[in-house]
């Protein structure tokens, strides 16, 4: 009896964090919100895409950068445009965030993708409102100002 209790307690303690942390406070993409959800097939048959999509992407990236070929069929921008999900407010969710199209499979297969250190994770055009990275550092510059004013005021005394 006592042993069983501890077993269940152990399991409960082990499993509880999983329940709590799953999708907590994260934007949920609405199922069927991406363009791809309403289509029957990707740019190539699904089985081929599942296994070979990176081959297409590697091929296309060289064609685009070196030869200036800008066809949409195998372009990463087109993948993102079609597969990106949207939340309740209609805002696109980064495609490499947890539970989103790219990340789901790559977590499963333990493949780390570095596309998105450079490429946009949501369709983002010129002129769209964007947050400046410097906005993130505002609190720092405020702190520095505080320190300098403090320093100067002390020195004057």
């Amino acid at each position, binding site marked *: 009896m006592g042993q069983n209790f501890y077993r269940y307690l152990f399991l409960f303690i082990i499993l509880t964090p999983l329940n709590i942390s799953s999708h907590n406070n994260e934007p949920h993409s609405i199922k069927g919100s991406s363009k791809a959800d309403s289509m029957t097939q990707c740019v190539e048959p699904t089985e081929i895409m599942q296994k070979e999509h990176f081959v297409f992407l590697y091929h296309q990236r060289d064609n685009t*950068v070196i*030869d*200036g*070929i800008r066809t*949409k069929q195998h372009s990463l921008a087109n993948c993102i445009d079609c597969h990106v999900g949207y939340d309740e407010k209609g805002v696109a969710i980064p495609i490499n965030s947890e539970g989103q199209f790219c990340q789901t499979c790559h977590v499963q297969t333990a493949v780390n993708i570095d596309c998105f250190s450079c490429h946009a994770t949501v369709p*983002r*055009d010129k002129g769209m409102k*964007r947050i400046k*990275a410097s906005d993130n550092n505002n609190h720092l510059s405020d702190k520095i100002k505080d320190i300098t004013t403090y320093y100067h005021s002390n020195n004057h005394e």
Partner: protein
Amino acid sequence: MNKNNLTRRDFLIKSASLMTVVYIIPDLVSKTEAKPLDEKVSSKTKWAMNIDVDKCTKGCTACVEACIEENGLYGMDRPETDSQWIRKLTLKDIKTEKIVELPMLCQHCENPPCCDVCPTGASFRREDGIVMVNQHTCIGCRYCMMACPFKARSFVHENLTEQLTSAPRGKGCVESCNFCANRIDHGSDMTACEEACQKEGHKAITFGDLSNPKSRVNESLASKPSRRLRSDLKLKQRVTYSGI
């Protein structure tokens, strides 16, 4: 019936005006033959830029701002390391003491020193003359930045998050002006900086295809003498300057 009513004079006037409409006017309008999206760039097109320094206005930074807007080059408010693909310079001629302001950008050399020194071949010259960085193979060694006599290249030091779909860029890579390659490949013949300069009404920057005799750059080259900066280096830049 009507034809019989035509006088000799009318006939001549009408046929001459018809000839004008059919043959002459289409030739006067400069054609922009957009490359199909699935076609490789070729050396038949030679992108080039001419900058008339006399028309470039002191204090105007429209081209710089347009470039930032076009390529999403937001910075970290650290001017020493932030990326700049185009910047304004103030130059003084030692002999004449003439002071000019000019925009400085990648000069798109035909003999680019950046490509000579690149250990991975990431710095390369596209068939149509655009010198750019293949960021997939760039290892961020910055040899090209040292080799460039015009200080035209920048290095991304920090993680970026808000890149544009049309302008991928990221930490650890060198980057520079690419003559708005994305725009051009999609059929435009105007860079963002030229567009901004025209909107401001200065028309100092002219861009176009050297092999098209009616392109804006050829017109401006024909109207005013121009020169390359540091022509002693024999780099054959595609960006030329008039008025210095």
